[in-house]
Each structure stands twice: as C-alpha cells, then as structure tokens.
C-alpha cells in the first residue's frame, strides 16, 4: 500500500496486518507514516496504490462512513468532536443506526457507562463540547468510539492529554475489548503506555514498516534505534548539580485566580528547570496562563530577576524588561497560525517588540538549526509540517525574543521521541544560560528526568514540592492524588 502527497511519499509500499484479539502498537517518529496509515484504514484518505482487506475481502473505503460500516473505528489524534453541539449530540453523531432519520439514542447507555468507568462521570450530557476541557473531550471521544462497537479500534494518541490513573482505566477497557475479539491499533509516544498495553509492536520509519515483533523481544534502546535509524544516546540530558545559591530569576508569591489557583508561591533559580505536575485541571495550566497575562483578575506578586513586574497581557509580558514567553498547550489553535507561512509564524513573537526587527532571520535561525527543523522552505504554510516540526516552530518563535523566563504547557504532547530529545536538550541549554524554565507536563518521566524540582498541584494548590531523591514516580503519583506522605509533608 502506498500513499503519495505530490512528490512526498508518506507511505511507501507498506504491508501491514492486524489480527483480531490483539493490541498492536505502532511506533515511529512524527512523519514516519503512522497517522497516514491510520487515516487510510479509517477511510479519511484513499491509497495511491494497494489494497485494504477486511476479513479476507478487498474493501474500498472512500469515506469514514464506509470504514464505520466495516467496523473500523478510529479515534483521531485531532479530535472528531463538534464544539457547538452537546456531549449527547456528539455521541449520536455518526452512531450506529443513526442515518439522516429519527435519532433513537441507542448506545447512549453504553457511552455513559464507558464515561463513568474512565473517570468522566462528572461530564454532563447536556453540556456543549466547547465548554469541556481537553482531557474531558478525549474521554468523550473514547466513549464515542466504543459505543460504535468496533471490530478494529484505532487509538491514535488517544490518551495524550489524560493523566496516569485515567489512562489505566482506559487501558482496562481496551483490554476487555481485545479479549472479546476486537483488534486494537495503538499509537502512542509514551513507552510505558506501550509497555502496559501492547501485544505486538510495529515500528515505522520514513513511510516504511521496519519491523514487527512481539512485546518483550526488544528493549527500549533497540526500539528507539529502529525508530530513528540511528542511536540516541540518552533521551534526557544530564542534570547538572543544583546551585542552591544561584540568583532567583522568577519569583512568584501569593498567586490567586478565581478560586481555581490558590495562593501559589514559586521561585525558579538560574539554571533550574521547574516542573509542574498534577491531575488535569488542578490549576497548574491556569497558573501558567495567568503568569503570561491571559487571565483576568489575578492577584499576587511576580518578580523577574528581583524586579517587580506587572503582567497585564501577553504584549507587556514579552517586552524586553520582562521577556516572558509561553508555549501553549494546543499548538494548532493557540501556538500557530496554520495557514500562514513558517517564516511569518516565526516572526510573530518578535513583532511588537520595539527593540527587535522581526524580519531579522538571525533571531530564530540558531534555534531552528539546533532543533533541526525539517521543512520544504520557510515560505511553506506551517500546516504542511508534521506535529513535531510545528512544535519546533512554536519554540523557535518564542526563543527569538531571548526570554528571561520560558513557560511551557505540555510541550511534548503527541511528539516523537527524537523531537522530544531535541526539545529537552535545548531546554537544558537555555537553563544553563540563565533562562528560568517552568515546564508543565503530563508525562511524569519528564518531571523526574528533566526537572530539577517538581511542584505537584491539587485543587489549585501546590501540595508537594519534590526535588533530589524525593523526586520519584511513587511520590509524584501519591502527591497528584493528594495522599500525604510524611516525607513530603515536611517538604511542602
């Protein structure tokens, strides 16, 4: 099977088999052809050459509708929920037996049950999807896929915004589906998730399938080598020794907002990367937004390099005297203007800084080079890039203003391993050069391996501050669930 986009071969002569009753993980960097393969199976794209066979019969999948009729259900990375409709209406959209006629609401009970099992019991059916948080939308998306009673279920980064305990309950459901004979295709960039769920693993690289093997036949190192085609020595850069007396770059005291962020104190020293963890929606995301001036009526003091700073809006936050940069959670809607060219996007942050000439390529060229942005010309629209490369553009755009303080909201969500290591490396380097870095993450490996200190949020407050030997997965998980442990109580 092949798929060509103009001269680009997204998939090149790939054979791929997925059996009933197994969870088949598909691994590969961004742009390796995984998502293209999934879209072909789901009928969203048509192959340039080749055939798709379901139960031994050739099928022609000209639209997602055809694919649904064959029981091929896909949970896309880009969510398939309609923002202006309610949860109930979204679940009914394209549900089995729902044509253009009267909607009977069959399957809603299944969806409700699924939602309750995966921690979405508080999602009301009458609420507009636009009013839900990103993790809640993913939960609805999962319920919507499962109520279609799939024979082949594709999970394309389906759990990327969900936290560990919800992911575990989703996995339980997926295992049940598998045991009742459903085939599951699973795409994730989190190794521990693949470890937990997969039966077999296929690795893709540059539009080709490199190898398929049983889980356990190869270790992490081997798999990463297969994915990148070359050896990556270390996923995370070494942590330097923390200098306890280093200058405090960012200092926040008594930060409050709307009852959702409560009395948060945080300070970041020169050379430090500070992590923010916690379950979804515990105030850590709002805290970052508030720092960048995106929220109304926040209280508290912020000082940068010892000087008090008032951050009313992003425009003041990015000026030279403050030089704050914020990498938002959703790069497609908040981080980039997809239809504009890569160059125009790169200029956006420096634009409006009187001391910088936004058209000066030397502002962003070094970081582009270090991140090794793969592109077909800076004049191309940024939407032509893969997800990982888009994130590199967002990062370079903000690095152009030489930020004193960099706030990142889950910057590696849905991004391949190689890009992750590049981002980790540049973050560590920036920290060494004196940039204060605050990193919100849903991946606790990042909070442990990359961050010098991690603060865990619960119900709007920091409930634990972990560093050094205290920074362990067990401690983070305990803190996210707000189970106090003696060792931390003293610390927090």
């Amino acid at each position, binding site marked *: 099977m092949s798929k060509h986009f103009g001269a680009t071969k997204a998939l090149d002569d790939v054979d791929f088999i997925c059996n009933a009753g197994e969870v088949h993980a598909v691994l590969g960097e961004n742009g390796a052809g995984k998502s293209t393969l999934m879209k072909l199976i*789901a009928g*969203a794209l048509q192959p340039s050459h080749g055939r798709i066979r379901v139960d031994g019969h050739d099928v022609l999948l000209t*639209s*997602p*509708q055809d*694919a*649904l009729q064959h029981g091929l259900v*896909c949970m*896309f990375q*880009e*969510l*398939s*929920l*309609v*923002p*202006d*409709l*309610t949860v109930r*209406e*979204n679940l*009914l*959209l*394209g549900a089995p037996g*729902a*044509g*253009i*006629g*009267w*909607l009977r609401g069959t399957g809603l009970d299944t969806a409700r049950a699924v939602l309750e099992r995966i921690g979405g019991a508080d999602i*009301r059916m*009458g*609420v*507009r999807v*636009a009013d839900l948080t990103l993790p809640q939308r993913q939960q609805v998306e999962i319920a*919507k896929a499962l109520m279609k009673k799939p024979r082949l279920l594709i999970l394309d980064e389906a759990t990327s915004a969900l936290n560990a305990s919800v992911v575990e309950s989703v996995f339980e459901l997926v295992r049940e589906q598998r045991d009742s004979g459903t085939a599951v295709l699973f795409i994730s960039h989190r190794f521990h998730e693949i470890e937990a769920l997969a039966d077999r693993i296929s690795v893709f690289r540059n539009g080709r399938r490199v190898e398929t093997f049983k889980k356990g036949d190869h270790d992490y190192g081997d798999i990463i080598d297969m994915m990148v085609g070359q050896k990556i020595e270390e996923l995370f850069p070494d942590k330097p020794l923390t200098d306890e007396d280093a200058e405090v770059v960012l200092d926040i005291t008594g930060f409050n*907002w*709307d009852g959702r962020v409560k009395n948060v104190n945080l300070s970041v020293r020169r050379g430090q990367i500070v992590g923010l963890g916690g379950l979804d929606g515990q105030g850590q995301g*709002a805290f970052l*937004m508030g720092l960048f*001036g*995106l*929220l*109304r*009526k926040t209280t508290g003091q912020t000082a940068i390099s010892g000087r008090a700073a008032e951050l009313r*809006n992003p425009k003041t936050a990015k000026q030279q005297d403050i030089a704050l940069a914020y990498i938002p959670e959703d790069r497609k809607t*908040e981080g980039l203007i997809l239809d504009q060219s890569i160059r125009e996007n790169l200029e956006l942050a420096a634009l409006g800084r009187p001391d910088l000439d936004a058209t000066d390529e030397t502002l962003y060229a070094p970081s582009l080079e270090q991140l090794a942005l793969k592109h077909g010309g800076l004049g191309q629209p940024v939407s032509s890039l893969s997800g990982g490369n888009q994130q590199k553009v967002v990062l370079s755009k903000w690095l152009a203003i030489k930020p004193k303080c960099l706030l990142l909201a889950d910057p590696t969500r849905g991004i391949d391993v190689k890009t992750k290591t590049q981002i980790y490396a540049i973050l560590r380097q920036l920290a060494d050069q004196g940039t204060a870095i605050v990193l919100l993450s849903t991946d606790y490996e990042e909070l442990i391996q990359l961050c010098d200190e991690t603060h865990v949020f619960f119900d709007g407050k920091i409930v634990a501050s972990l560093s050094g030997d205290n920074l362990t997965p067990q401690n983070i998980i305990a803190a996210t669930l707000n189970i106090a442990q003696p060792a931390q109580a003293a610390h927090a």
Partner: protein
Amino acid sequence: MLDYVRSNRREVIAGVVLVVLLAGYIGTHPRGASTYVMTIWANQGLILGLAACAQFFAVVVRGIDLSVGAIMALTNCIASYLLDGSALGIGFGMFAVVAAGAACGLLNGVIIVYGRLQPIVVTLATASIFVGIALLLRPTPGGAINYDLADAITLDVLGIPTALIITGVVIMGFWLPFRRTGLGLGLYALGSSEQAAFQSGINTKFIRLAAFTLAGFFGGLAGLYYSFVTTTGDAGIAPGFTLNSIAAVVLGGVLLRGGVGSLVGALAGAFILKTIASLMFFSGLPSLAQPLFEGMILAAAIAIGGADVLRARNKLEAYS
C-alpha cells in the same frame, strides 16, 4: 434545566426582546390587541419569518444564501399564474410553487457542493438568474390569486391569526421533530466543524445539499405566503427580503459563522424586525428614520448576545 437555558440563551434573549417590543406595539396602537391588528402584524411577520427560515438553513451550515429574495420573487410570479381556477388546479399550483423553490435551492446546492464554490458567490449569481426568469414571467406586477383561499390563509381562525397558527405548525410540526433527526444534527455538525463531522462518518456533501434545498423550500413557502397576502405577482421584491432575512437570523441569535442558532430564533428575529417597523409606523416617528432605529436595535441585540464575553476570566475565551 440550567444547561438547557444556557445552550438556548440566544433564543431566550430574542424571545424576550420580541415580547417587550410587541407589548410596546399593542400599547401604542389605537386599536390595541384586536384580531385585526394582530392578523396584519402576524402576516407581515410570517412572510419575513419564512424567508428567515430559508436563510437559517444556509447560515447554519456556514454558508449564506443571497438568493432567498430572488426565490421568493420567482415563486411569487409562478404563483400569480397557477393559484386560480379549480380546487385541483390550485392544489397542484401550490405544490408546484413550493417545488420550484426547492428546485432553485437544489440548484444552488449542486453548484456549491460539486463546483466547490463559495455559497456567497454562487447564490449571488443564481439570484440574478431567478429574478431574470421572474421578470420574464411578470414584467410588471399583476396576475391573480384565488381570493377565498387567500382570505382563509391570511385572516384568522376563532380570533387567532392564521399566520401564527402556521408559525406554530412550522415550529412544533416541523422544527422540533427535525432537530431530533440525523439530518438536523448533521446540519449543526457541518456548520460547527466540517472536519469533525466528516471524521464522524457524516456524509457532508449530502447534508450541505439538503441544507440549501431546504433553504429553497422555505424560500418557496415564503413566496407562496407572500402571494396570499398581496394576491399579485411582483418580480421586484427580491433585494429587500434577502437583506432582511439576513438581519432577521442575526437578530434571532443565529451566528453567521455557522453551527449555532435555531429556526425558532430565526422566526423570532423576523417578527422582531417587523414589530419594529410597525412600532415606528404608529409611534409618529418619521418613516425615513426607520432604518436608523432598526440598525440600532440590531446592534444592541448582537451586543447582548455577545455580552457573556465580559464574564470570561480567561481572555482566550473571547476569541473562541
């Protein structure tokens, strides 16, 4: 209940505005809430209401229909030839008039969907074509409509204006059930996020085609009802109705970006516009000042609809 009011607050606002204006109108009118006053008001409201329904179906799928008035003009001219004579002939004529409207809408839809063109351009072109045909049919206003039938449909039943009964039938008999069908849901899905609708296995081409056909169908109904009210055929009515139908859906809380609003809102918006016009006529304000006041009320209504942005504590919500 709270969720329900929240998700329908646009219709609620339009309803409240309408009630207030109507109370003002009845209060200032020398003959008060008589059947006569209400019937004239309802007839005028329903003509624009049906045109607003037509516009609604185009707007909800993130389109716009500039041929609503033209379809009304064309169907009105066809009606002025067909709606007289035997009962059977009139029955066939009414069917033909509405079918002609639906056919015009289908033509719009086919060009938009299969020509992959912008609705605003397509309907601008077809509007000229429809008006052109109407002018060939009726170079000057004229023709006749069966008076008995026209009276039956434009007067009252037991003191209730027939136009209000028809409005009720459109809402209860058509809209509320329609909203619970896959097609009704699909319209909103398409207008709100075409990509999400496609990925959910919705036949987006069919839905868009159906939306424009329904727009034509309601344009035909509006033309038919206009014929009963005026009992003549007139090819020159197109521009006013097209623009007013857009104003009406906006007043009724239908977002021009698609995916938000309802037929009830569109109807309410149309009645609001007509009530303002009548209010102005009887309040002694110079009729030349009417567009000024209509515009101010339009702006105020949109401002109220967007007022919840002020409550948002997250500035990004203002842009979503």
